[in-house]
């Protein structure tokens, strides 16, 4: 492994700059005015949080950026990060009717960023906590699901305490999104907006049982996400020089770029979206070669098509139909290659770093009842692993159910 990063600070900064830079005011106005303002708009239907997309875009067109951001953030507490990291090609932008007019869809994500940046940059507070109800809810996990739930519960006036095992809140938004899409400072600012509604956060606390929470709170929301990266189950995977993708990315996102070690020849095992994040970021960190090794074929890759395209544009390599068999040590505490089985027999791919990205396993440190009236779940731990926007939608939906339960129980309608 290389001792020091071959790239200059400027190169590293450029490599991790926003892949979709913000629109200028003029560009935003031009784009906003292209929106047709559909009725019952397919973009809104396609969004898991059902942001009223035409409404927020028209507000950009009229210069009402605060109102625009409110439309977005009212529906989706993670509107900032979704604007940067949402797979819009398969959601709102993919549903845009302009696709049917053989045109580029409206740049919904960039417009969303334009509006939400306006309030983020000015630290405008768009939401307030509701009048206190005296109810208390515990939330396990300060990721997009838990904090979306927290925000909606605070708006309804309930007291909320969020427990999170990590030092910083935000979950994968803070630790796991590709650096060139979403930076931790934005993720944390977005979280702070929610915490500022009076959410109590207990960081660095691992919850291993719901019992004490159920005894002390009126409801519990579990949004703990998934567990660590699955193991390959092949020889050599514990060698130094083998790292799982989430650890690699988390380190990159929480340290100056050159403090994250990257090999000269990096192999990433897996072909999901996280594998793409890992291989592109390894390349952008300065790896001479970064290659995806995948046991199935090109058409079987679980990553989004545009993510595959991105990795190709980044100059990453792809080895399909190559099933990892063994990671070979270099005899001095590192790795020298990955042995794979291909149709043509066994082969060794030389490498000095292996990143494992074959998906996350379930959480093992905490179990929760599936049919407890006071327990609600959402996010990756409920849906098996999806997008920020799914987690946000599920957190918001759970908050609504919790609120209904608590207010109906009291017989005091809202």
């Amino acid at each position, binding site marked *: 492994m290389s001792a020091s990063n071959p790239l200059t600070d400027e190169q590293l900064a450029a490599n991790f700059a926003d892949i979709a830079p913000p629109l200028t005011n*003029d560009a935003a*106005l*031009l784009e*906003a*005015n292209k929106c*047709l*303002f*559909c*009725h*019952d*708009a*397919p973009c809104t*239907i396609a969004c898991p949080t059902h942001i009223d997309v035409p409404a927020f875009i028209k507000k950009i*067109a009229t210069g009402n950026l605060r109102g625009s951001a409110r439309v977005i953030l009212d529906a989706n507490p993670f509107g900032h990060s979704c604007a940067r990291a949402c797979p819009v090609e398969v959601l709102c932008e993919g549903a845009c*009717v*302009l696709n*049917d*007019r053989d045109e580029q869809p409206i740049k919904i994500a960039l417009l969303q960023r334009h509006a939400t940046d306006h309030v983020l940059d000015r630290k405008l507070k768009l939401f307030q906590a509701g009048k206190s109800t005296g109810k208390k809810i515990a939330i396990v996990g300060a990721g997009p699901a838990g904090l979306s739930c927290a925000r909606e519960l605070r708006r309804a006036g309930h007291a909320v305490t969020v427990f999170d095992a990590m030092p910083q809140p935000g979950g994968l938004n803070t630790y796991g999104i590709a650096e060139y899409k979403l930076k931790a400072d934005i993720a944390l600012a977005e979280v702070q907006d929610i915490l500022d509604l009076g959410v109590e956060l207990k960081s660095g606390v691992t919850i291993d049982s719901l019992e004490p929470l159920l005894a002390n709170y009126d409801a519990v929301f579990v949004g703990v996400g998934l567990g660590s990266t699955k193991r390959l189950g092949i020889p050599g995977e514990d060698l130094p020089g083998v790292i799982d993708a989430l650890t690699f990315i988390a380190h990159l996102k929480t340290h100056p770029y050159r403090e994250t070690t990257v090999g000269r020849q990096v192999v990433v095992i897996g072909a999901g979206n996280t594998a793409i994040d890992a291989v592109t970021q390894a390349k952008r960190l300065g790896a001479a070669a970064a290659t995806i090794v995948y046991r199935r074929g090109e058409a079987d890759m679980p990553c989004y098509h545009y993510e595959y395209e991105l990795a190709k544009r980044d100059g990453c390599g792809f080895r399909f139909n190559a099933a990892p068999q063994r990671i070979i040590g270099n005899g001095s505490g590192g790795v020298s290659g990955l042995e794979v089985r291909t149709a043509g027999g066994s082969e060794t791919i030389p490498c000095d770093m292996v990143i494992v990205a074959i998906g996350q396993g379930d959480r093992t440190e905490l179990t929760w009842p599936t049919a407890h009236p006071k327990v609600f779940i959402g996010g990756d731990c409920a849906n098996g692993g999806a997008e920020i926007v799914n987690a946000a939608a599920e957190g918001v939906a759970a908050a609504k159910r919790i609120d209904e339960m608590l207010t109906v129980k009291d017989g005091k309608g809202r």
Partner: protein
Amino acid sequence: MADLKTNFAGIQSPNPFWLASGPPTNTYGQVAKAFDEGWGGAVWKTIGEPIINVFSRYGSVDLGPNRMMGFNNIELISDRPIAENLKEIAEVKRNYPKHAVIASLMVESKQKAWHEIVKQTEDTGADGIELNFGCPHGMSERGMGSAVGQVPDYTCQIVGWVKEVATIPVIVKLTPNVTDITYIARAAVKGGADALSLINTINSIVGVDLTTFEPQPSVAGKSSHGGYCGPAVKPIALHLVSAVAGDAAVKIPISGIGGIATWRDAAEFIALGAGTLQVCTAVMHYGFRIVEDLTDGLSNWMDERGHRTLADVRGRALPRVAKWEDLDLNYHLLAHIDQDKCIKCELCWTACEDGAHQAIRRLPRDNGGPVVEIIEEACVGCNLCAAVCPVQDCITMRQVKNDYAPVSWKNYAAGKGKLAPRSEQFHTATWSPSTKH
């Protein structure tokens, strides 16, 4: 190739495109450059006793990202000495003998003053004179411009004074800021005008700065009403040109002005009776170079349609401008949606439902098929859905034939003729939030 040569009240020009009197025609250099780039004529910026302008003179209305859809100004007539203007007019005419050079004039309402300026102008060799009876701002406060053009008697009298000495054609430029422009047009004819030009700008306040509450364009915190022009005013100008051109008591050539920016605009003005076209705002926006497509586009269109000269086109739409009471009540239309072209934006539905006649039905998106369909028994053929549809030729209006003879309101009200059965179904006479169509 179509012949664009123009003879307008005896004034010759290589094509019908003239620069209107305004900032683009303020100097020799501008007009000479414009002629070099292809303009057929120019009406010089209005000459009179030199004025002093304010700073900040123009205000603009954008439509989304489109700049200057509407435009206004509080600039006055030329701020240059009369002698200087006349010298340059003479020079332009000398160097561009085949182009039309028109002097726009505005002086105080005294016979002697008008006689003097007209004689001086004639000495330049200019092809014609345009009387500025239209400017709605500033000069009108001093009893000139629209202050003259809004009173038929003044208009008639001053045109008369001018005609007492003028030997070249006299064009009277009309203001639209009147209740009925034909009265002014007739007064100009009575005074002896050789031609008319219209419209001058429309009185306007172009906007208000919402931070400072200053109307625009702001001059040290205050503003004044100014003359509105640009693409936004074209429909008003088309109407007024047609009203004057169709008036049996007028019958003199008309130079069309008002929002002309493309050859299509020009063709429409010609079809409604204009002999030449005057352009200002579009040049202020994009420069003299626009004349290339104005002439090229007009010429290509004429070739394609088999029109050889402008006379073949002029006034062709006029016989079709009718009174409402003469329109056929038995001409029925039905909107038709080409479902293969539909992109499912539902703009037609929401427009028809909220803004028209509730004649479009929504179908569930989940079905995968069409999401909108016309309720034929409710459709009144109003065109709104076709107007809002963002896909070309997706919604078309189709005639529904019936066996009834045409009947106008005038005849029907007089008991002559029968109405064909028509769509008149209202299903929104009652409404509640749960109503879902």
